[in-house]
Protein backbone atom coordinates (compact mmCIF):
# COMPACT_ATOMS: atom_id res chain seq x y z
CA UNK A 1 0.00 0.00 0.00
CA UNK A 2 1.43 3.31 -1.09
CA UNK A 3 0.55 6.42 0.87
CA UNK A 4 1.32 10.11 0.51
CA UNK A 5 1.09 12.30 3.60
CA UNK A 6 0.56 16.04 3.22
CA UNK A 7 0.32 18.87 5.75
CA UNK A 8 -3.26 20.04 6.21
CA UNK A 9 -2.77 23.25 8.17
CA UNK A 10 -0.56 23.14 11.26
CA UNK A 11 -2.43 20.46 13.18
CA UNK A 12 -3.61 17.84 10.71
CA UNK A 13 -2.19 15.39 8.20
CA UNK A 14 -3.97 14.33 5.03
CA UNK A 15 -3.22 10.76 3.95
CA UNK A 16 -3.75 9.97 0.28
CA UNK A 17 -3.66 6.51 -1.27
CA UNK A 18 -2.72 5.08 -4.64
CA UNK A 19 -5.63 4.62 -7.03
CA UNK A 20 -5.24 0.79 -7.09
CA UNK A 21 -5.83 0.73 -3.39
CA UNK A 22 -8.77 3.12 -3.61
CA UNK A 23 -10.50 0.92 -6.15
CA UNK A 24 -9.98 -2.23 -4.13
CA UNK A 25 -12.36 -3.62 -1.53
CA UNK A 26 -9.59 -3.12 1.01
CA UNK A 27 -10.00 0.66 1.13
CA UNK A 28 -13.11 0.82 3.28
CA UNK A 29 -11.98 -2.03 5.55
CA UNK A 30 -8.61 -0.40 6.11
CA UNK A 31 -10.30 2.92 6.95
CA UNK A 32 -12.54 1.07 9.40
CA UNK A 33 -9.50 -0.41 11.13
CA UNK A 34 -7.89 3.02 11.34
CA UNK A 35 -10.84 4.61 13.15
CA UNK A 36 -11.16 1.67 15.54
CA UNK A 37 -7.49 1.42 16.52
CA UNK A 38 -6.12 3.65 19.24
CA UNK A 39 -4.11 6.47 17.73
CA UNK A 40 -0.47 7.30 18.53
CA UNK A 41 -0.10 9.57 21.60
CA UNK A 42 -0.65 13.20 20.75
CA UNK A 43 -3.01 12.28 17.89
CA UNK A 44 -6.60 13.37 18.49
CA UNK A 45 -8.85 12.04 15.76
CA UNK A 46 -8.90 10.13 12.50
CA UNK A 47 -11.62 11.27 10.09
CA UNK A 48 -12.23 9.21 6.97
CA UNK A 49 -13.24 10.92 3.74
CA UNK A 50 -14.42 9.12 0.63
CA UNK A 51 -10.86 8.44 -0.58
CA UNK A 52 -8.55 9.86 2.09
CA UNK A 53 -7.94 9.97 5.82
CA UNK A 54 -7.34 13.07 7.93
CA UNK A 55 -5.49 12.78 11.22
CA UNK A 56 -5.63 15.64 13.73
CA UNK A 57 -2.67 15.96 16.08
CA UNK A 58 -1.58 18.15 18.95
CA UNK A 59 0.62 20.80 17.27
CA UNK A 60 2.53 21.59 20.47
CA UNK A 61 3.66 17.99 20.67
CA UNK A 62 4.60 17.40 17.05
CA UNK A 63 6.04 19.31 14.14
CA UNK A 64 4.73 18.30 10.72
CA UNK A 65 7.78 16.11 10.13
CA UNK A 66 7.69 14.30 13.47
CA UNK A 67 3.93 13.79 13.17
CA UNK A 68 4.33 12.37 9.68
CA UNK A 69 7.03 9.99 10.83
CA UNK A 70 4.91 8.76 13.73
CA UNK A 71 1.86 8.31 11.51
CA UNK A 72 3.79 6.36 8.84
CA UNK A 73 4.95 3.95 11.52
CA UNK A 74 1.40 3.58 12.83
CA UNK A 75 -0.13 3.08 9.38
CA UNK A 76 2.42 0.40 8.54
CA UNK A 77 1.30 -1.70 11.48
CA UNK A 78 -2.44 -1.24 10.83
CA UNK A 79 -3.85 -4.41 9.26
CA UNK A 80 -6.77 -4.58 6.85
CA UNK A 81 -9.94 -6.20 8.25
CA UNK A 82 -10.44 -9.62 6.74
CA UNK A 83 -13.54 -10.52 4.76
CA UNK A 84 -14.85 -12.75 7.61
CA UNK A 85 -15.14 -9.77 9.97
CA UNK A 86 -17.56 -7.88 7.73
CA UNK A 87 -21.02 -7.45 9.31
CA UNK A 88 -24.28 -7.94 7.43
CA UNK A 89 -27.15 -5.80 8.68
CA UNK A 90 -30.74 -5.98 7.53
CA UNK A 91 -32.59 -2.70 7.94
CA UNK A 92 -36.38 -2.43 7.67
CA UNK A 93 -37.61 0.18 5.22
CA UNK A 94 -41.10 1.37 4.38
CA UNK A 95 -41.56 2.67 0.82
CA UNK A 96 -45.13 3.90 1.42
CA UNK A 97 -45.85 7.09 -0.53
CA UNK A 98 -46.56 9.06 2.68
CA UNK A 99 -42.93 8.47 3.75
CA UNK A 100 -41.37 8.67 0.27
CA UNK A 101 -42.03 12.12 -1.23
CA UNK A 102 -39.58 11.63 -4.13
CA UNK A 103 -40.36 8.01 -5.05
CA UNK A 104 -42.64 9.04 -7.91
CA UNK A 105 -40.07 11.46 -9.26
CA UNK A 106 -37.28 8.86 -9.17
CA UNK A 107 -39.55 6.31 -10.91
CA UNK A 108 -40.65 8.80 -13.58
CA UNK A 109 -37.13 10.03 -14.33
CA UNK A 110 -36.01 6.44 -15.10
CA UNK A 111 -39.26 5.36 -16.86
CA UNK A 112 -39.90 2.77 -14.18
CA UNK A 113 -42.92 2.01 -12.02
CA UNK A 114 -42.61 2.70 -8.31
CA UNK A 115 -42.79 -1.06 -7.67
CA UNK A 116 -39.83 -1.58 -10.00
CA UNK A 117 -37.88 1.11 -8.13
CA UNK A 118 -38.69 -0.59 -4.81
CA UNK A 119 -37.73 -4.02 -6.17
CA UNK A 120 -34.43 -2.69 -7.54
CA UNK A 121 -33.57 -0.67 -4.45
CA UNK A 122 -34.28 -3.51 -2.01
CA UNK A 123 -32.59 -6.26 -4.02
CA UNK A 124 -29.06 -4.91 -3.88
CA UNK A 125 -26.45 -5.34 -1.13
CA UNK A 126 -24.97 -2.01 -0.05
CA UNK A 127 -21.69 -1.14 1.63
CA UNK A 128 -21.08 1.74 4.07
CA UNK A 129 -18.44 3.91 2.36
CA UNK A 130 -18.37 6.84 4.73
CA UNK A 131 -20.08 8.32 7.79
CA UNK A 132 -20.34 12.10 7.63
CA UNK A 133 -22.39 15.19 6.72
CA UNK A 134 -24.42 14.75 9.95
CA UNK A 135 -23.96 12.59 13.06
CA UNK A 136 -24.14 8.93 11.98
CA UNK A 137 -25.23 9.68 8.37
CA UNK A 138 -24.05 6.70 6.26
CA UNK A 139 -23.11 6.92 2.58
CA UNK A 140 -23.98 3.55 1.03
CA UNK A 141 -22.62 2.30 -2.28
CA UNK A 142 -24.30 -0.45 -4.26
CA UNK A 143 -27.28 1.41 -5.69
CA UNK A 144 -28.35 -0.28 -8.95
CA UNK A 145 -27.14 1.94 -11.81
CA UNK A 146 -30.69 2.40 -13.17
CA UNK A 147 -31.65 4.28 -10.00
CA UNK A 148 -28.85 6.87 -9.94
CA UNK A 149 -30.60 10.25 -9.60
CA UNK A 150 -29.13 13.70 -9.00
CA UNK A 151 -29.99 15.64 -5.85
CA UNK A 152 -33.09 17.81 -5.76
CA UNK A 153 -32.55 21.22 -7.32
CA UNK A 154 -34.02 22.86 -4.21
CA UNK A 155 -33.23 21.08 -0.95
CA UNK A 156 -36.12 20.30 1.37
CA UNK A 157 -36.14 22.36 4.55
CA UNK A 158 -37.03 19.46 6.82
CA UNK A 159 -36.32 15.78 6.40
CA UNK A 160 -37.50 13.35 9.08
CA UNK A 161 -34.90 11.13 10.75
CA UNK A 162 -34.82 7.64 9.23
CA UNK A 163 -35.55 8.96 5.73
CA UNK A 164 -33.68 7.03 3.05
CA UNK A 165 -32.51 9.04 0.08
CA UNK A 166 -30.67 8.82 -3.22
CA UNK A 167 -28.04 11.30 -4.43
CA UNK A 168 -26.12 10.34 -7.55
CA UNK A 169 -25.00 6.74 -7.12
CA UNK A 170 -25.23 6.81 -3.33
CA UNK A 171 -27.95 5.94 -0.87
CA UNK A 172 -27.98 7.67 2.51
CA UNK A 173 -30.02 7.64 5.70
CA UNK A 174 -30.89 10.86 7.54
CA UNK A 175 -30.25 10.51 11.27
CA UNK A 176 -31.46 13.91 12.45
CA UNK A 177 -34.16 16.24 11.28
CA UNK A 178 -32.20 18.50 8.92
CA UNK A 179 -32.58 20.28 5.62
CA UNK A 180 -31.34 18.15 2.73
CA UNK A 181 -31.31 17.59 -1.00
CA UNK A 182 -31.39 13.80 -1.34
CA UNK A 183 -34.34 12.21 -3.18
CA UNK A 184 -36.37 10.57 -0.41
CA UNK A 185 -37.71 7.15 -1.46
CA UNK A 186 -38.54 5.56 1.90
CA UNK A 187 -38.03 5.61 5.63
CA UNK A 188 -36.68 3.25 8.28
CA UNK A 189 -38.13 3.17 11.80
CA UNK A 190 -34.69 2.34 13.20
CA UNK A 191 -32.68 4.89 15.17
CA UNK A 192 -29.29 5.01 13.47
CA UNK A 193 -27.58 7.38 15.84
CA UNK A 194 -27.94 7.43 19.62
CA UNK A 195 -25.61 9.37 21.89
CA UNK A 196 -26.30 6.85 24.68
CA UNK A 197 -24.69 4.02 22.71
CA UNK A 198 -21.00 3.42 22.19
CA UNK A 199 -20.23 3.77 19.36
CA UNK A 200 -23.18 6.12 18.89
CA UNK A 201 -23.51 5.20 15.22
CA UNK A 202 -25.29 1.91 14.44
CA UNK A 203 -23.57 1.51 11.08
CA UNK A 204 -19.81 1.38 10.71
CA UNK A 205 -17.54 1.71 7.69
CA UNK A 206 -17.51 -1.47 5.63
CA UNK A 207 -20.81 -2.83 7.00
CA UNK A 208 -22.98 -4.56 4.35
CA UNK A 209 -26.55 -3.42 4.38
CA UNK A 210 -29.66 -5.05 2.95
CA UNK A 211 -33.11 -3.49 2.99
CA UNK A 212 -36.16 -5.40 4.22
CA UNK A 213 -39.34 -3.76 2.87
CA UNK A 214 -42.10 -3.40 5.50
CA UNK A 215 -45.69 -2.16 5.31
CA UNK A 216 -46.92 1.13 6.70
CA UNK A 217 -48.62 -0.78 9.56
CA UNK A 218 -45.35 -2.49 10.47
CA UNK A 219 -43.58 0.87 10.28
CA UNK A 220 -46.12 2.40 12.64
CA UNK A 221 -45.86 -0.42 15.17
CA UNK A 222 -42.06 -0.15 15.08
CA UNK A 223 -42.34 3.58 15.77
CA UNK A 224 -44.75 2.84 18.63
CA UNK A 225 -42.23 0.36 20.07
CA UNK A 226 -39.39 2.88 19.90
CA UNK A 227 -41.27 5.46 21.97
Amino acid at each position, binding site marked *: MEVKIEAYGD*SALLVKFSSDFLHSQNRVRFFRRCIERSLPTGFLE*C*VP*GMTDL*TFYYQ*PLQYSFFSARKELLRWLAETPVITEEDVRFIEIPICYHSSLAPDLDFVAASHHLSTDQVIALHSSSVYEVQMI*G*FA*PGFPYLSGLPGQLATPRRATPRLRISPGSVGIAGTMTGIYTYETPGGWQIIGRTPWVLFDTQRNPP*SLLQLGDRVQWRPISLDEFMSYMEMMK
Partner: protein
Amino acid sequence: MKIIKPGLLTTIQDAGRNGWQRYGVVVGGVMDSLSFRIANRLLGNPEGLAVLEITLQGPTIQFEEFTYCVLTGADLSPRLNCQTITLYRPFPVHPGDELSFNYPNIGCRTYLAVSGGFVVTEVLGSRSTYLRSAMGGYKGRKLQEGDRLQTGTHEGMDQLCNFFQFSQTKRYPLVSQTLNPSYQTYRSIRFLPGPEWHLFNHDAQKQWQEQSFLVMPQSDRMGYRLQGPPIQLTKAEEMLSSAVTMGTVQVPSDGQPIILMADRQTTGGYPRLAQIITADLPVLAQVRPGDKLRFQLCSLEEARSALMEQERQLANLFWALEWYKK
Protein backbone atom coordinates in the same frame (compact mmCIF):
# COMPACT_ATOMS: atom_id res chain seq x y z
CA MET B 1 -28.78 31.86 38.39
CA LYS B 2 -31.67 33.00 36.28
CA ILE B 3 -31.82 34.49 32.79
CA ILE B 4 -33.83 37.74 32.83
CA LYS B 5 -33.07 38.66 29.20
CA PRO B 6 -31.31 36.14 26.89
CA GLY B 7 -29.37 38.53 24.64
CA LEU B 8 -28.69 37.79 20.97
CA LEU B 9 -27.11 34.34 21.26
CA THR B 10 -26.06 33.00 24.65
CA THR B 11 -25.12 29.31 24.83
CA ILE B 12 -23.33 26.90 27.14
CA GLN B 13 -20.03 25.80 25.60
CA ASP B 14 -16.87 23.93 26.53
CA ALA B 15 -13.96 22.50 24.54
CA GLY B 16 -16.38 20.58 22.29
CA ARG B 17 -17.17 16.95 21.43
CA ASN B 18 -13.74 15.66 20.60
CA GLY B 19 -13.08 12.15 19.37
CA TRP B 20 -16.41 11.51 17.63
CA GLN B 21 -15.81 13.07 14.22
CA ARG B 22 -15.27 9.61 12.72
CA TYR B 23 -19.01 9.05 13.36
CA GLY B 24 -19.98 12.36 11.81
CA VAL B 25 -20.41 14.16 15.15
CA VAL B 26 -19.78 17.90 14.97
CA VAL B 27 -17.07 19.10 17.40
CA GLY B 28 -18.63 22.50 18.22
CA GLY B 29 -17.52 24.08 21.49
CA VAL B 30 -16.27 27.61 22.14
CA MET B 31 -15.31 29.78 19.18
CA ASP B 32 -12.46 31.55 21.04
CA SER B 33 -10.57 28.78 22.85
CA LEU B 34 -7.95 31.18 24.22
CA SER B 35 -10.41 33.39 26.12
CA PHE B 36 -12.22 30.24 27.27
CA ARG B 37 -9.12 28.64 28.78
CA ILE B 38 -8.07 31.88 30.46
CA ALA B 39 -11.55 32.38 31.95
CA ASN B 40 -11.48 29.05 33.78
CA ARG B 41 -7.90 29.51 34.94
CA LEU B 42 -8.56 32.99 36.33
CA LEU B 43 -11.16 31.44 38.64
CA GLY B 44 -8.94 28.54 39.66
CA ASN B 45 -11.29 26.18 37.79
CA PRO B 46 -9.87 23.17 35.98
CA GLU B 47 -9.44 24.07 32.29
CA GLY B 48 -12.38 22.86 30.24
CA LEU B 49 -15.35 23.55 32.55
CA ALA B 50 -18.43 24.81 30.72
CA VAL B 51 -18.87 28.59 30.32
CA LEU B 52 -21.44 30.88 28.72
CA GLU B 53 -20.57 32.15 25.27
CA ILE B 54 -22.21 35.53 24.87
CA THR B 55 -22.48 37.08 21.41
CA LEU B 56 -22.45 40.85 20.67
CA GLN B 57 -25.58 41.75 22.57
CA GLY B 58 -25.32 40.39 26.10
CA PRO B 59 -27.99 38.90 28.37
CA THR B 60 -29.22 40.09 31.75
CA ILE B 61 -28.55 37.50 34.43
CA GLN B 62 -29.72 37.46 38.02
CA PHE B 63 -27.66 35.53 40.54
CA GLU B 64 -29.36 33.46 43.20
CA GLU B 65 -26.33 32.29 45.14
CA PHE B 66 -22.99 33.70 46.19
CA THR B 67 -20.21 32.79 43.77
CA TYR B 68 -17.27 34.19 41.82
CA CYS B 69 -17.37 34.99 38.12
CA VAL B 70 -15.05 36.31 35.46
CA LEU B 71 -15.50 37.69 31.94
CA THR B 72 -12.92 37.33 29.15
CA GLY B 73 -12.76 38.00 25.41
CA ALA B 74 -14.93 40.71 23.86
CA ASP B 75 -15.75 43.88 25.78
CA LEU B 76 -19.55 44.11 25.62
CA SER B 77 -19.69 46.78 28.38
CA PRO B 78 -20.54 44.49 31.29
CA ARG B 79 -22.07 45.89 34.48
CA LEU B 80 -22.93 44.34 37.82
CA ASN B 81 -25.99 46.20 39.08
CA CYS B 82 -24.84 49.65 38.00
CA GLN B 83 -21.12 49.20 38.33
CA THR B 84 -18.76 48.59 35.43
CA ILE B 85 -16.98 45.23 35.50
CA THR B 86 -13.33 44.87 34.50
CA LEU B 87 -12.65 42.02 32.09
CA TYR B 88 -10.13 39.38 33.19
CA ARG B 89 -10.67 40.13 36.89
CA PRO B 90 -12.78 37.74 38.99
CA PHE B 91 -15.67 39.44 40.83
CA PRO B 92 -17.96 38.19 43.61
CA VAL B 93 -21.71 38.08 43.06
CA HIS B 94 -24.40 37.94 45.76
CA PRO B 95 -28.02 36.74 45.61
CA GLY B 96 -30.06 39.35 43.76
CA ASP B 97 -27.12 40.86 41.87
CA GLU B 98 -27.78 41.53 38.20
CA LEU B 99 -25.18 41.18 35.48
CA SER B 100 -26.05 43.06 32.30
CA PHE B 101 -24.33 44.32 29.18
CA ASN B 102 -24.49 47.56 27.29
CA TYR B 103 -23.13 48.33 23.80
CA PRO B 104 -20.59 45.96 22.18
CA ASN B 105 -17.39 47.92 22.59
CA ILE B 106 -14.75 45.65 21.08
CA GLY B 107 -14.76 42.06 19.78
CA CYS B 108 -17.70 39.74 19.22
CA ARG B 109 -17.82 37.04 21.92
CA THR B 110 -17.39 37.30 25.65
CA TYR B 111 -17.04 34.33 27.98
CA LEU B 112 -18.66 34.19 31.40
CA ALA B 113 -17.10 31.59 33.67
CA VAL B 114 -18.35 30.81 37.19
CA SER B 115 -16.64 29.03 40.01
CA GLY B 116 -17.20 25.31 39.43
CA GLY B 117 -18.50 25.83 35.88
CA PHE B 118 -22.02 25.48 34.48
CA VAL B 119 -23.53 22.06 34.98
CA VAL B 120 -25.69 20.38 32.38
CA THR B 121 -25.74 16.71 31.33
CA GLU B 122 -22.78 15.72 29.19
CA VAL B 123 -23.55 14.39 25.73
CA LEU B 124 -20.70 12.39 24.20
CA GLY B 125 -18.31 13.82 26.77
CA SER B 126 -19.14 17.50 26.29
CA ARG B 127 -21.56 20.12 27.61
CA SER B 128 -21.40 22.21 24.45
CA THR B 129 -24.63 23.31 22.79
CA TYR B 130 -24.90 22.21 19.15
CA LEU B 131 -27.92 24.11 17.90
CA ARG B 132 -28.47 22.36 14.55
CA SER B 133 -28.97 18.92 16.11
CA ALA B 134 -30.35 20.36 19.39
CA MET B 135 -27.55 18.43 21.11
CA GLY B 136 -26.03 19.12 24.54
CA GLY B 137 -25.94 22.38 26.46
CA TYR B 138 -29.13 23.68 28.07
CA LYS B 139 -31.91 21.65 26.35
CA GLY B 140 -29.90 21.81 23.12
CA ARG B 141 -30.81 25.44 22.53
CA LYS B 142 -29.75 29.02 23.15
CA LEU B 143 -30.76 30.48 26.51
CA GLN B 144 -34.18 32.03 26.89
CA GLU B 145 -35.88 34.24 29.41
CA GLY B 146 -36.61 32.41 32.65
CA ASP B 147 -33.99 29.62 32.20
CA ARG B 148 -32.27 28.62 35.44
CA LEU B 149 -28.69 27.43 35.31
CA GLN B 150 -26.87 25.21 37.79
CA THR B 151 -23.26 25.78 38.72
CA GLY B 152 -20.91 23.12 39.99
CA THR B 153 -18.23 22.65 42.57
CA HIS B 154 -14.74 21.28 42.19
CA GLU B 155 -12.06 19.98 44.47
CA GLY B 156 -10.03 22.69 46.10
CA MET B 157 -12.68 25.37 45.65
CA ASP B 158 -12.85 26.00 49.42
CA GLN B 159 -9.18 26.82 49.54
CA LEU B 160 -9.56 29.56 46.95
CA CYS B 161 -11.03 32.19 49.34
CA ASN B 162 -7.76 34.02 49.81
CA PHE B 163 -7.10 33.85 46.11
CA PHE B 164 -10.41 35.52 45.36
CA GLN B 165 -9.78 38.20 47.94
CA PHE B 166 -6.43 38.77 46.34
CA SER B 167 -8.09 39.03 42.92
CA GLN B 168 -9.80 42.20 44.16
CA THR B 169 -6.46 43.91 44.81
CA LYS B 170 -4.28 45.93 42.49
CA ARG B 171 -1.50 43.34 42.60
CA TYR B 172 -3.63 40.79 40.70
CA PRO B 173 -1.84 39.95 37.43
CA LEU B 174 -3.22 41.88 34.48
CA VAL B 175 -3.75 39.85 31.35
CA SER B 176 -1.77 41.33 28.50
CA GLN B 177 -3.75 42.59 25.51
CA THR B 178 -1.83 40.20 23.30
CA LEU B 179 -3.75 37.42 25.07
CA ASN B 180 -7.10 39.04 24.30
CA PRO B 181 -7.94 38.24 20.67
CA SER B 182 -10.54 41.04 20.61
CA TYR B 183 -7.71 43.56 20.38
CA GLN B 184 -6.09 41.84 17.39
CA THR B 185 -8.92 41.81 14.86
CA TYR B 186 -7.34 44.63 12.82
CA ARG B 187 -4.34 42.56 11.77
CA SER B 188 -4.20 40.10 8.90
CA ILE B 189 -5.02 36.47 9.51
CA ARG B 190 -2.27 33.98 8.68
CA PHE B 191 -2.96 30.85 6.65
CA LEU B 192 -1.29 27.78 5.19
CA PRO B 193 -2.17 26.45 1.73
CA GLY B 194 -5.22 24.15 1.88
CA PRO B 195 -5.29 20.67 0.31
CA GLU B 196 -6.71 22.08 -2.97
CA TRP B 197 -4.59 25.28 -3.09
CA HIS B 198 -2.99 24.06 -6.35
CA LEU B 199 -6.40 23.87 -8.07
CA PHE B 200 -6.60 27.67 -7.91
CA ASN B 201 -4.59 29.58 -10.48
CA HIS B 202 -1.99 32.19 -9.71
CA ASP B 203 -4.45 35.09 -10.04
CA ALA B 204 -6.93 33.51 -7.64
CA GLN B 205 -4.17 32.81 -5.12
CA LYS B 206 -2.96 36.38 -5.48
CA GLN B 207 -6.43 37.84 -4.98
CA TRP B 208 -6.90 35.84 -1.82
CA GLN B 209 -3.70 37.32 -0.42
CA GLU B 210 -3.98 40.89 -1.69
CA GLN B 211 -7.65 41.83 -1.47
CA SER B 212 -9.72 42.38 1.63
CA PHE B 213 -12.86 40.37 2.31
CA LEU B 214 -16.03 41.47 4.02
CA VAL B 215 -17.52 39.20 6.71
CA MET B 216 -21.15 38.83 5.66
CA PRO B 217 -24.13 39.14 8.03
CA GLN B 218 -25.09 35.46 7.44
CA SER B 219 -21.90 34.43 9.27
CA ASP B 220 -22.43 32.32 12.37
CA ARG B 221 -20.87 29.67 14.60
CA MET B 222 -20.81 27.25 11.66
CA GLY B 223 -18.92 29.47 9.25
CA TYR B 224 -18.09 32.97 8.06
CA ARG B 225 -19.27 33.85 4.60
CA LEU B 226 -16.88 36.26 2.92
CA GLN B 227 -17.54 38.71 0.15
CA GLY B 228 -14.80 39.90 -2.14
CA PRO B 229 -13.48 39.49 -5.69
CA PRO B 230 -14.61 35.99 -6.81
CA ILE B 231 -11.91 33.34 -6.47
CA GLN B 232 -12.19 30.95 -9.40
CA LEU B 233 -10.89 27.44 -9.79
CA THR B 234 -8.65 26.76 -12.78
CA LYS B 235 -11.20 24.18 -13.86
CA ALA B 236 -14.36 23.01 -12.16
CA GLU B 237 -13.59 19.77 -10.39
CA GLU B 238 -15.88 17.27 -8.74
CA MET B 239 -14.72 16.88 -5.15
CA LEU B 240 -15.27 13.79 -3.06
CA SER B 241 -16.14 14.40 0.58
CA SER B 242 -13.10 14.86 2.77
CA ALA B 243 -12.48 16.13 6.30
CA VAL B 244 -12.81 19.83 7.13
CA THR B 245 -12.00 21.57 10.38
CA MET B 246 -12.16 24.93 12.14
CA GLY B 247 -10.34 27.47 9.98
CA THR B 248 -10.74 25.55 6.71
CA VAL B 249 -11.43 28.00 3.87
CA GLN B 250 -13.78 26.43 1.32
CA VAL B 251 -14.64 27.96 -2.03
CA PRO B 252 -18.04 27.03 -3.51
CA SER B 253 -18.64 27.52 -7.24
CA ASP B 254 -19.74 31.17 -6.82
CA GLY B 255 -16.14 31.99 -5.80
CA GLN B 256 -17.07 33.53 -2.43
CA PRO B 257 -15.01 31.80 0.28
CA ILE B 258 -16.43 30.39 3.52
CA ILE B 259 -14.25 30.00 6.63
CA LEU B 260 -15.53 27.09 8.68
CA MET B 261 -15.79 27.74 12.41
CA ALA B 262 -16.67 25.81 15.59
CA ASP B 263 -19.97 24.24 14.43
CA ARG B 264 -18.67 23.08 11.03
CA GLN B 265 -19.61 19.65 9.74
CA THR B 266 -16.98 16.91 9.89
CA THR B 267 -16.56 16.59 6.11
CA GLY B 268 -17.18 18.80 3.11
CA GLY B 269 -17.15 18.68 -0.65
CA TYR B 270 -15.88 22.11 -1.73
CA PRO B 271 -12.25 22.78 -2.70
CA ARG B 272 -10.22 23.84 0.33
CA LEU B 273 -8.22 26.92 -0.60
CA ALA B 274 -6.55 27.60 2.73
CA GLN B 275 -6.26 26.61 6.35
CA ILE B 276 -6.08 29.37 8.98
CA ILE B 277 -3.25 28.73 11.44
CA THR B 278 -4.27 27.52 14.90
CA ALA B 279 -2.77 30.54 16.67
CA ASP B 280 -5.00 32.95 14.71
CA LEU B 281 -8.32 31.13 15.20
CA PRO B 282 -9.16 33.00 18.44
CA VAL B 283 -8.73 36.32 16.61
CA LEU B 284 -11.09 35.12 13.89
CA ALA B 285 -13.62 34.18 16.59
CA GLN B 286 -13.69 37.82 17.72
CA VAL B 287 -14.35 39.25 14.25
CA ARG B 288 -17.82 40.72 13.68
CA PRO B 289 -20.10 40.59 10.67
CA GLY B 290 -19.28 43.73 8.69
CA ASP B 291 -15.55 43.61 9.54
CA LYS B 292 -12.98 43.36 6.76
CA LEU B 293 -10.34 40.64 6.75
CA ARG B 294 -7.00 40.23 5.05
CA PHE B 295 -5.09 37.00 4.73
CA GLN B 296 -1.37 36.38 4.77
CA LEU B 297 0.46 33.24 3.67
CA CYS B 298 2.90 31.80 6.21
CA SER B 299 5.07 28.72 6.64
CA LEU B 300 4.54 25.66 8.82
CA GLU B 301 7.43 26.83 11.01
CA GLU B 302 5.89 30.28 11.52
CA ALA B 303 2.51 28.72 12.31
CA ARG B 304 4.04 26.50 14.95
CA SER B 305 6.20 29.17 16.54
CA ALA B 306 3.20 31.56 16.72
CA LEU B 307 1.31 28.87 18.63
CA MET B 308 4.27 28.16 20.89
CA GLU B 309 4.67 31.85 21.68
CA GLN B 310 0.98 32.06 22.59
CA GLU B 311 1.32 28.99 24.78
CA ARG B 312 4.41 30.47 26.45
CA GLN B 313 2.51 33.64 27.37
CA LEU B 314 -0.35 31.53 28.71
CA ALA B 315 2.05 29.43 30.75
CA ASN B 316 3.50 32.61 32.30
CA LEU B 317 0.04 33.83 33.23
CA PHE B 318 -0.99 30.45 34.66
CA TRP B 319 2.27 30.24 36.59
CA ALA B 320 1.63 33.65 38.17
CA LEU B 321 -1.91 32.58 39.12
CA GLU B 322 -0.72 29.32 40.68
CA TRP B 323 1.87 31.22 42.65
CA TYR B 324 -0.74 33.59 44.08
CA LYS B 325 -3.15 30.77 44.86
CA LYS B 326 -0.70 29.33 47.43
